[in-house]
């Protein structure tokens, strides 16, 4: 009897052949870098990953002594830490080109370097922007022809700029009016949001459906008023990362969030967290008032 029982137990133990790796050691650092041919600077930030339960101040997690480089295979640029801007940066000078692949390396002291690669997407499309002021409201429409044979991931964002009377003047005072600029909460047809994400994953090459935007009370208190609309052509990872960043808030513990699965932020960084990505942006600015 005992022998039989031992055999059965042995069968169970030896059957446990599906190997599950033990939880890995926490990754220690994160790097964020997004390249754009239109930007005059290459910028990156490096930070320390904080364990749950650890108290920290925001300044202490910023890594200011890292060695950050971006390479296109033939030329390597080192990004230097700018304390005022709290980031690593270096002039672009035409270094970032659409269609080209780049590699990022961030070395923090003696730890294993953080690395990542990305390909800069094609130039953002030219688009038509038409709009009209309807009382204090502003309605606009954006339209462009998408390139065939490639999957594109877009983000449309808007800004409003203008001269505004107090209380919009800066805290230092001295000026009767000040230039203000802010992201707009635009009604994109599915509710108000500062950005709209679009992809042609299922309709490659077809003309993007004209995008309607509507800004409520856009013209209050500001004169003159300029509206800028930007269309960014992003790589897929950046698109998913940016969308996820809007959906994920660390402490949002409401009832509806009980129905959401935990979501890891997309990352392409080896030996760490964060993202190395690229986009191309085109902006049209028009005066509406």
């Amino acid at each position, binding site marked *: 009897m005992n022998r039989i029982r031992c055999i059965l*137990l042995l069968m169970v133990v030896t059957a446990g052949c599906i190997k599950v790796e033990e939880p890995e050691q926490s990754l220690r650092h994160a790097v964020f870098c997004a390249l754009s041919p239109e930007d005059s600077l290459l910028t990156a930030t490096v930070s320390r990953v904080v364990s749950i339960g650890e108290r920290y101040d925001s300044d202490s997690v910023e890594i200011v002594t890292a060695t950050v480089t971006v390479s296109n295979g033939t030329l390597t640029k080192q990004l230097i830490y700018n304390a005022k801007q709290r980031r690593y940066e270096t002039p672009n000078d035409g270094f970032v080109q659409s269609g080209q692949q780049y590699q990022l390396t961030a070395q923090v002291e003696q730890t294993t370097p953080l690395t990542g690669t990305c390909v800069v997407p094609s130039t953002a499309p030219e688009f038509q922007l038409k709009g009209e002021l309807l009382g204090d409201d502003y309605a606009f429409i954006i339209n462009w022809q998408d390139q065939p044979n490639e999957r594109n991931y877009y983000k449309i964002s808007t800004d409003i700029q203008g001269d505004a009377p107090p209380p919009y003047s800066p805290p230092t005072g001295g000026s009767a009016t000040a230039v203000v600029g802010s992201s707009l909460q635009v*009604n994109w047809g599915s*509710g108000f949001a500062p950005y709209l994400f679009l992809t042609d994953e299922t309709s490659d090459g077809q003309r993007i459906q004209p995008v309607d935007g509507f800004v*409520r009370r856009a013209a209050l208190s500001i004169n003159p008023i300029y509206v800028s609309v930007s269309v960014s052509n992003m790589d897929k990872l950046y698109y998913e*990362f940016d969308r996820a960043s809007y959906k994920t808030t*660390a402490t949002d513990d409401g009832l509806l969030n009980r129905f959401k699965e935990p979501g890891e932020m997309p990352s392409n960084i080896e030996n760490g967290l964060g993202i190395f990505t690229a986009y191309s942006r085109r902006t049209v600015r028009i005066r509406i008032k």
Partner: protein
Amino acid sequence: MATFGQPVRISGFVRDSSSREALSNVSVVVEEAASITQSNSYGFYALSLQKGRNYTVTYSRVGYRGQTIEIMPVVNRELDIQLVQTVQMLAEVDVSATDDRASRQVQMSSISLTAEQIKQVPALLGEKDVLKALQLLPGVQQGAEGSSVFYVRGGGADQNLILLDNATVYNANHLFGFFSTFNTDAIKRVELFKGGFPARYGGRLSSIVDIQLKEGNRERIHGEGGIGLLASRLTLEGPIVKNKVSFLLSARRTYADALLRLIQPATSQLTYRFYDLNGKLNWTLNRRNSLYVSVYTGDDLLQIKESVNRSASAIDYRNQLKWGNTTSSLRWNYLVNSRLFSNVTLTHSIYRFGLTDFYQRIRRENTYSTDAAFASTVRDWTLKVDMDYYKSLRHSIKWGGAWTLYRFQPRAVSNKTIQEGVEQVSSATEAPVNTVEAALYAESQYQFSPKFTLNSGLRLSYYKAQRRTYWRPEPRLALAYRLTESLALKAAYSRMNQYVHQLSNTGAGLPTDLWVPATDAVPAQTGDQLALGIARDFGATYSLTTDVYYKWMRGVINYKSGANFLGIGEDLTAEKLRWENDVTSGRGWAYGLEVLAQKKRGRLTGWVGYTLSWSIRQFAELNGGKPFYARQDRRHDLKIVETYQLSPKIRLSASWQFNSGTALTVPQAVYINPGSDVGRFSPFLYYGQYNGFRTPAYHRLDASIQFVRQKRWGERSWEFSVFNLYNRRNIYYYSIIYQYEPSTKLNYYGLDGKWLLPVLPSISYNFKF
């Protein structure tokens, strides 16, 4: 006419002597032939004996006094048997299969419980619960704290087929799982299969829970009920035409909503209620024909209302969760001849879930409001035919078929936003999906010798949804070999297919039962299970069973990382609102060892169950494609259930359970982007390995004492029970907390383990007449 030595057929029904209800699973032992058979689900049995020989036939069933008769069959005859319930005040706790002796059963990995047995187990707030009684058995694990959700042998919660009078119950939970939808007073019997599935069952990978309602007392009006702290219940049953037509009506309802309204201010209210209604009509047309109609309906409703003035804003918040099942079945039993019994069943089942979420903020003349709604339903219609053929004393055959039409409406979402006078309405509804599932089966049980019995079967399952069609054979095999009079070796293999999935999120135990079909994009689930076991009896009092099992699963599904169950707050277009976009399909493995030691007789009765198990999943799109432990992976699981009959009027019961921590996916770290170009909201959460976090071990002691007294009108009992006697703080879920200390400028992100159920004493009053 049969001559000497020729077979003679003895057949009939076994019934309760008091209520005349048919008794299933009654062991019918023919000593001279060393043969054992059982009455079927409708109390019918048949024996094939040799003419002119003397036989000793014993009929026995747990909770009933055994009956032995001597017969010398000459001609085919009908022999109906009535068994008398044990006169003991309360039946002994016993979870054995019906013949008491575990070593004599061919079927392994199955357990049968009666309502009386369920009522002896201590329960939360005194509400006896069939599913929680099952959770106290080895190989069965509970879901979240206090929940009646259960996992069997490492399978998912959706891999359990729960049948109520043959109709599928899709969501068996009330009050977020704290109670099951089954009113114990209305239950006659429940049978759990964890493995070695007979071919007549199919459709789920991990378990079959077959619950039969009482038929209704055919002799006299009988009632029972109870008044508890949370709910009250009443069951009435009796004859409409004596011994011909009987009925059963049973109702249960909470009064939590009324109590909560009384103690809460009108501006901030959380109310909750549930109810169950069971009805059954049993009509014996003649000896050969019987009709049964059974209906169940139940609903849960949770409402949260809050109206506050904050920061010069008037805020109004209303939230409502509603879910429930309705099942109905119509059965026709037809005794074709003394050897062939048929059952035709027509069932309908529907499960519905809905949520509304309204928020309004009025600040000066500006109004902002959102009004979101979500709905999901699944319904099915099933036609089933089962035939039982008693070929000889040693050989019985079952065959039949089933045809089911499903209609799934996984998600319908709408959202209305009003901001500064602009109304924005968006909605999306996933197109309903109709699918068909059908099966043909045959199973044969043959006793080759007094020592060796083989049950073999084949189920051919068919499924069609959209453009995908499955034809899949499912072989089944179970064998038992008796090494000695009290020691048997058993083995079983079964393949199961499952064509419906349940999407479950890993958050708090909300009723996230989104049932979806296998489709073109998401395959069906398939599982193979191999089990080996030993059963040993130590006299009539003690028994020990040990099973080992290994289960392979393919086509199991899981939500993708970041998926939103409701779809509320997402881009609402029909194309984007496809549940297939949110899930990923993969593989699973489960294996383990189960030990069950029972003491069946005496003043002290009960059992000790231990399970050592592993449950693992692997999905290409989760955890970097590497295997990870399933949420229900719990290495050790120990349960002790004991009842002590202090006197005929007083009984003490206690249960203690321990299991290793649950595997969860919770944040391991946070990281921020000091700049602002990339990533709009900081910090980001880092979860690390999927289900890489373990909650602390779970353990809990419940105890109760029952005082029973016979009255002129019947019987009454008081029960005092304590749930979680030593106030163990078992984790229910984790929430993420953020703190900022302005003086030190320190930030803090932490996990806050929420525990839910402290020590809870309760009292309940029960009666029978």
